[in-house]
């Protein structure tokens, strides 16, 4: 039986600093409209958005569509 062990430092470092692509970021952004993300996902998304103007625009588009859909209801 393999016991659960703490991941090695390099493995943890890799997980923490893994840089996500726009495709992954777009999925997380969509998902964040439906519920809270985990802390690791939030950290990765924040790091990506800090450098990516396109995903920042996409995030604004998501908010735009949500506002529009709510307006459709009113």
């Amino acid at each position: 039986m393999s016991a659960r062990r703490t991941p090695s430092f390099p493995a943890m470092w890799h997980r923490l600093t893994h840089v996500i692509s726009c495709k992954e970021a777009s999925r997380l952004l969509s998902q964040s409209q439906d519920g809270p993300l985990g802390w690791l996902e939030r950290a990765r998304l924040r790091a990506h958005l800090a450098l990516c103007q396109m995903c920042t625009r996409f995030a604004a588009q998501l908010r735009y569509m949500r506002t529009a859909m709510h307006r459709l209801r009113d």
Partner: protein
Amino acid sequence: MDAAAFVAELDAHRRYLLRVARLQLRDAELAEDVVQDTLLAALKARDGYTGASTVKTWLTGILKHKIVDAIRARQRAPVPMAQLDEETDLDDFDPLFKENGAWAARPGDWGDPEAALNRRQFFDVMELCLDQLPAKTARVFIMREVMDLDTAEICKELSITANNLWVILYRARMALRVCLEQKWFAGAAERSAAP
């Protein structure tokens, strides 16, 4: 240097990189894409920066490779709407993204929602776009966005997993935004110029 300081250091060179890329590519949008790729690649390859050269020189080296790639990939066809309709797995080929996961077509700047949301025509276009979604996708999306049900309620109602739901909602949002870009925002400039 900690991660935040490194990101700030990279971002400080953005204008310089853009100038170089624009000069070489003569295409402002493509230049921005290439600089974006470069900065993300640099962030990813942070450990590869040894400090032997300045950050600027190192970034310029990465940029050159990205420019060469961009020139090679320049002849790329636009994304047809129909390809988005297929209810396939998300891991399949996704025409909205390049192979490396970067945007194939850059998302547009939609500006302030209030500008469009006061116009009746905007909602006509949005309803048209909603009609074009696959039936099941549209149903789930309306439950979430118009009826404002939370994810647990929708999953229970339709007997689907949370993961399933996220995929459907993601697909709905991606298809809707492409449709709105094509049918509304692409013509926004002409409309605002009209008397």
